[in-house]
């Protein structure tokens, strides 16, 4: 059994019971007992035990480990759509540079697509020491299979020790396939990345259970150490036009670019011009909006602020807003600088999708609404009075 209690050391103090995030430990006859059906072997009990009574076999038995010392450098998958690099890729280059200082290594971007020359300078200015560029007309748009095969080949050839990728719809599909192919550890949606100074390994911290607990994850015995990160978690470097970088063009046999799935069309359908995931400010409405027409008020407010319009599930289910605007557990997770929650009560499913926002402004009639517990600034009142007043005041301040 990979986990067990050393009965002679256990005092029945129940520290482990409190530490267990999975409710898997009970005290029976003054000794701890682990319910293995609930246990996930996370090790929280081992850390909590003062008597070294928890035995946890964490070391893999004997696996085919790659030569870890051969792996060097930090790579970032540069996501492009329509030939334009997505903002999350710049954010990752910024973080990668910070990690690279600790590891004393270089940062490289991998860019796949067609006719991307005009994007290269900006990537170098924002932190790419090298850019591996793979261009071909068949690669203009993302497709799972060719992009996976290219990344697998490049990783095998150049052996990066860390590989970062945006947690976008494209990134999450692609990088999962790559990690399976090369047998690497992959941690999704990291909100913190750091280097363990003693072991020089990547510490990947991510929320679980809708952000109710945080877990720090490592993959010490496999390379590269792979992680995805959502939009807006890290900040891009300021573009430094003096920075120099190397462009390395890679060509493969065109058979590698074959895809069994065929992309027939791409349809854009965002109502406003601002992508929810990338927005710095989001104005969201919930059940308190009272109807589809009233969202015009939020759209006006959003227009003044240059913001995107979001929505709670209640407003989507009522047909007031399309699903693509839904924030929350079954919609999108966002972390803008400012999130306005207008007429949103703040059910836990909504909170998990927006509680990492820097500033949360809640406007609600009900002073007991749970949204006020996470709000940076709370306003108890009628949103149909408050929002127009905010529009007026912001217009004055912004001289619009």
């Amino acid at each position, binding site marked *: 059994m*990979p986990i067990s209690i050393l009965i002679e050391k256990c005092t029945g103090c129940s520290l482990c019971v*409190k*530490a267990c*995030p*999975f*409710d898997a430990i009970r005290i029976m006859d003054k000794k701890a007992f682990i319910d*293995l*059906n609930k*246990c996930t*072997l*996370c*090790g*929280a009990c081992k*850390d909590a035990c003062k008597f070294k009574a928890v035995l946890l076999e*964490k070391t893999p038995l004997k696996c085919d480990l790659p030569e870890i010392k051969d792996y060097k450098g930090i790579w970032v998958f540069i996501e492009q*759509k329509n030939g334009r690099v997505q903002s999350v890729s710049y954010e990752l280059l910024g973080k990668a540079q910070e990690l690279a200082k600790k590891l004393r290594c270089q940062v490289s971007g991998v860019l796949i697509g067609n006719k991307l020359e005009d994007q290269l300078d900006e990537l170098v200015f924002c932190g790419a020491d090298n850019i591996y560029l793979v261009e071909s007309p068949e690669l203009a748009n993302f497709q*799972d*299979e060719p992009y996976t095969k290219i990344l697998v080949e490049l990783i095998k050839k150049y052996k990066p020790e860390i590989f970062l990728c945006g947690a976008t719809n494209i990134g*999450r*599909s692609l990088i*999962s*396939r790559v*990690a*399976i192919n090369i*047998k690497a550890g*992959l941690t999704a*949606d990291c909100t913190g990345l750091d280097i363990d100074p003693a072991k020089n390994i990547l510490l990947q911290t991510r929320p*679980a*259970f*809708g*952000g*109710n*607990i*945080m*877990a*720090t*994850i*490592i993959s010490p015995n496999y390379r590269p150490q792979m992680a995805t990160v959502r939009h807006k978690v890290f900040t891009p470097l300021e573009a430094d036009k003096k920075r120099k970088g190397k462009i390395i063009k890679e060509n493969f046999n065109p058979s590698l670019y074959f895809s*069994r799935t065929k*992309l*027939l*069309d*791409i*349809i854009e359908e*965002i109502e406003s011009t601002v992508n929810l*995931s990338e927005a710095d*400010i989001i104005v969201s409405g919930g059940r308190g909006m009272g109807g589809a027409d009233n969202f015009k008020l939020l759209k006006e407010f959003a227009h003044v602020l240059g913001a995107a319009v979001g929505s709670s599930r209640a407003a989507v289910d009522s047909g007031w807003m399309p699903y693509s605007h839904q924030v929350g557990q*079954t919609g999108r997770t966002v972390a803008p600088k*400012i999130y306005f929650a207008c007429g949103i009560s703040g059910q836990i499913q909504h909170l998990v999708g927006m509680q990492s926002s820097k*500033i*949360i402004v809640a406007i609600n009639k009900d002073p007991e609404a749970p949204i*006020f517990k996470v709000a940076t*600034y*709370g*306003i108890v*009142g009628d949103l149909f009075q*408050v929002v127009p*007043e905010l529009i007026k*005041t912001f217009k004055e301040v*912004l001289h619009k």
Partner: protein
Amino acid sequence: MNIIVCIKQVPETTEVRINPETNTLMREGVKSIINPFDMYAIEEAVRLKERFGGKVSIVTMGPPQADSALREAISIGADEGYLVCDRAFAGSDTWATSYTLAGAIKKMGSFDLIICGKQASDGDTAQVGPGISTHLDIPQVTYVKKVEEATDKHMRVERMLEEGYEIIETPLPALLTVVKEINEPRIPSLKGLMRAKSAKIVILTQKELALDPQQIGLCGSPTQVVKIFTPQPRAGGQMLSGEVSDIAKKLVDLIKDEVI
């Protein structure tokens, strides 16, 4: 059309709350449910079966009590349930989980389509679906919001992106992961509930699957959890009160630096 749906039993997250005094998770009496996204996967599979005939098989990896999730799936139209359950699989990360489920699927016989929810509500990784298709070497389409056309040889689907959607054609067999927008799951019928009660659940252990012991469970998992902790709660907020015009001025003063 033979369809396999992969599901996961998860705690109903609304009930997972932090005890403010001890700062630990309160999970007393937390109900287990089918991962909400998997409900859409089951529903889509049942709808395809109703159009094309064939059967819907559900597979889950988990402890013995995940039996109830399989029965719930049968109550809303699935035909059979497979429970992949063995202590040897404990501690699996997404790599080992997808390897194990792919092994179970091979054992379950031929299939035309695999459907998964886009992600599980407890882990949120969205990695196991693509992991399974990679282990089985079949094409995948993730974040599917609509099946536009289907035959027994191919499918044309709409795949959701951040700012719109793509129309993708895939040959079968293939794996889809689906989002909420794809359908409205049905509620169980009385007949379904009766069938679920008496259905026989097939248990698959390491003995039946005979997977490479180096690739399963803790040993087969490249990632390890080193620390679990509760996040810092958000710092206490500030309530703004007074006349509406005063409130607006106060708020604008407080946040205007972030706007400009």
